[in-house]
């Protein structure tokens, strides 16, 4: 498999579109997922920003130094695109709602919906660091690079956000609900 660095060099030197297509195919999932989390499941806008992210990456490929991973650099561009978008649409409050699934609310609370809801509880900057820490598996120093903040601030942000989310989960008895869900599904299986 051709490395990201080799492909990026081809793009930077000769604007090789085939090489860039491979890079987009390789990194689209991570970038789109990241923006979807930041935009609390506004998938259409997230995908638009992801398109802009890749276009900017194509234009500025020369500026990727190669010391950091390409995925880290792409997340940095994506985060800046998100901040720009947010600045332009400041009045719109982003708040996820748990979809109304009728009486069977437990079915609606699957992990993805819950993740979106939890993201809606956080400030945009906290959403960014928590997603990078928990979903992409980046190190704290890589996260600091992406959000362009000191390492200490990033660690403090993650700690505070984690406490907030855990408290919300405890207050809303999330663990009990999931247990009940799994018990009921086990029951159904036994009946079958």
């Amino acid at each position, binding site marked *: 498999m051709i490395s990201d660095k080799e492909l990026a060099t081809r793009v930077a030197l000769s604007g090789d579109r085939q090489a860039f*297509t491979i890079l*987009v195919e390789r990194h689209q999932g991570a970038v789109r*997922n990241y923006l979807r989390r930041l935009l609390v499941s506004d998938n259409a806008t997230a995908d638009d920003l992801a*398109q802009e992210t890749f276009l900017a990456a194509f234009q500025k490929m020369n500026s990727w130094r190669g010391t950091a991973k390409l995925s880290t650099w792409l997340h940095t561009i994506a985060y800046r695109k998100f901040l720009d978008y947010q600045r332009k649409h400041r009045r719109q409050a982003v708040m996820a709602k748990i979809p109304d699934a009728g009486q069977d609310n437990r079915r609606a609370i699957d992990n993805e919906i*819950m993740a979106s809801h939890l993201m809606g509880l956080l400030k945009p900057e906290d959403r960014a660091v928590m997603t990078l820490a*928990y*979903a992409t598996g980046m190190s704290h120093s890589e996260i600091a690079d992406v959000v362009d903040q000191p390492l200490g601030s990033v660690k403090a942000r993650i700690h505070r956000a984690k406490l907030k989310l855990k408290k919300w989960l405890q207050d809303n008895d999330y663990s009990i609900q999931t247990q009940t869900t799994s018990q009921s599904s086990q029951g159904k299986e036994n009946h079958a």
Partner: protein
Amino acid sequence: MLDEILEYHETPEDDNFVAGVMNNVRRQQRIRRLILTVTGMTGAVFGTTGVLTISSSISQLMNDANMLPVSLTLVGVAVFLAWLFQDEVLATG
């Protein structure tokens, strides 16, 4: 528990997205080429106009009966270049 909830649960990957990005890239390259062409052509037009203007005035000057100003200018340029060259020789030597 947070790890489990916050991890990505789906991988949004499709060819339409890639095609969209590559269309944007192609469009952006086309616009860049267009801007370069227009700018280059504008520069060429202005450059040609300038050269034509100067050449007509030079030919007009050459056609005049009095060649003294042209001769003096040429001699002046030659003296200046000679002085410049001599200075460089002295400096390097």
